[in-house]
């Protein structure tokens, strides 16, 4: 298409960077969605069960748009450029056979080391406090991220960002209110949410750490300068923690690696759950 900035991406390296970037965003949404979906039928009250699954469905929607875009990028690549992109045999067989890929192939046929999601989103639900803390850190980041991505030179990412920003603004409102309720609630709820925000703190640094892909996309005006979001993110969460009478964690050491495929064991279990059916009955539809 004339005027589409995707066609202006000069070389294979940039194409791969855009693909990885798109996949990384898709994987975050997909894994987060799966974690929140695990609450379905187990919510503490019916109304919050519905709230969680609503948010989970928003995330699924974001993941689908992003996986569809990633699949299109792959389908437009010459076979030679995509033979060694993934480690999964089933996926590579499809690519080698010249088959067009779709969103499901990318969600269900990539193994953990090809997943580029944040370590934060794969952390287990544990209890209500951990679930809220994980959502809060992530939502506060994604709100700033999608705001930035609205200025992307890539029309597709820009469009997805505009739609998703409305969704994540609500997600953040929901998780912020829960942080305040639990923090400024009973002694027990205060202690539980403080423990959860402390324990998950070490996974927040990765959100702002720029991989080579992130840097290439930011320089090209396609992606967001993640490091530049940190100050606003910190101010925003500080503000909520103050209202919640919670202490901002002070640990400096941060765990990263998810964006480059180095995951904790948790992701393996999630993918086993998600991918079992497609791997056992390839192409099964319903």
């Amino acid at each position, binding site marked *: 298409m004339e005027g589409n900035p995707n066609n202006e991406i000069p070389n294979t390296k940039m194409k791969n960077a855009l693909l990885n970037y798109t996949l990384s965003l898709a994987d975050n949404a997909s894994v987060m969605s799966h974690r929140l979906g695990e609450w379905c039928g187990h919510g503490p*009250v*019916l*109304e*919050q069960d*519905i*709230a969680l699954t*609503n948010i989970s469905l928003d995330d699924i929607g974001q993941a689908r748009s992003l996986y569809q875009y990633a699949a299109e990028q792959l389908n437009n690549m010459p076979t030679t450029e995509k033979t060694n992109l993934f480690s999964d045999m089933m996926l590579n067989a499809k690519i080698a056979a010249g088959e067009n890929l779709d969103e499901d192939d990318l969600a269900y046929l990539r193994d953990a080391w090809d997943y580029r999601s944040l370590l934060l989103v794969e952390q287990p639900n544990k209890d209500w406090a951990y679930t809220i803390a994980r959502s809060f850190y992530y939502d506060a980041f994604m709100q700033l991220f999608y705001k930035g991505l609205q200025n992307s030179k890539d029309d597709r990412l820009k469009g997805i960002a505009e739609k998703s920003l409305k969704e994540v603004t*609500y997600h953040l*409102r*929901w998780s912020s*209110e829960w942080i305040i*309720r639990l923090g400024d609630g009973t002694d027990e709820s205060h202690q539980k949410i403080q423990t959860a925000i402390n324990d998950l703190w070490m996974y927040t640094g990765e959100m702002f750490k720029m991989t080579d892909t992130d840097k290439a996309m930011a320089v090209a005006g396609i992606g967001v300068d993640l490091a530049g979001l940190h100050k606003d993110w910190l101010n925003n969460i500080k503000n909520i923690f103050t209202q919640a009478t919670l202490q901002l964690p002070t640990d400096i050491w941060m765990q990263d690696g998810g964006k480059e495929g180095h995951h904790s064991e948790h992701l393996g279990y999630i993918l086993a759950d998600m991918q079992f059916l497609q791997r056992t009955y390839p192409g099964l539809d319903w």
Partner: protein
Amino acid sequence: MTDEKKSTSEWPLWEVFIRSKAGLDHKHAGSLHAADAAMAIENARDTYTRRMEGVSIWVVESKYIHASNPDESGALFEPANDKIYRHPTFYDLPDEVKHM
């Protein structure tokens, strides 16, 4: 569980009213539990507007709704049964008048 215990351990009940589009009335949509008004509106958003049913939400704690007594429905409503003259059906309308 006694009612007294229930009231301290469970969130209060709220009635939800949804306006389906600008210019229309808010209509009763259902009820839900929530700790306070802010949470009631969010829960209502998630429970009753997921399929684009609304553009505006009202919530009111159920205990503030006062209802007529079903036992009195005879005295309250039946006297209206034989007052058909209260319906404007006895006027001859000119043909020019539309939409009546």
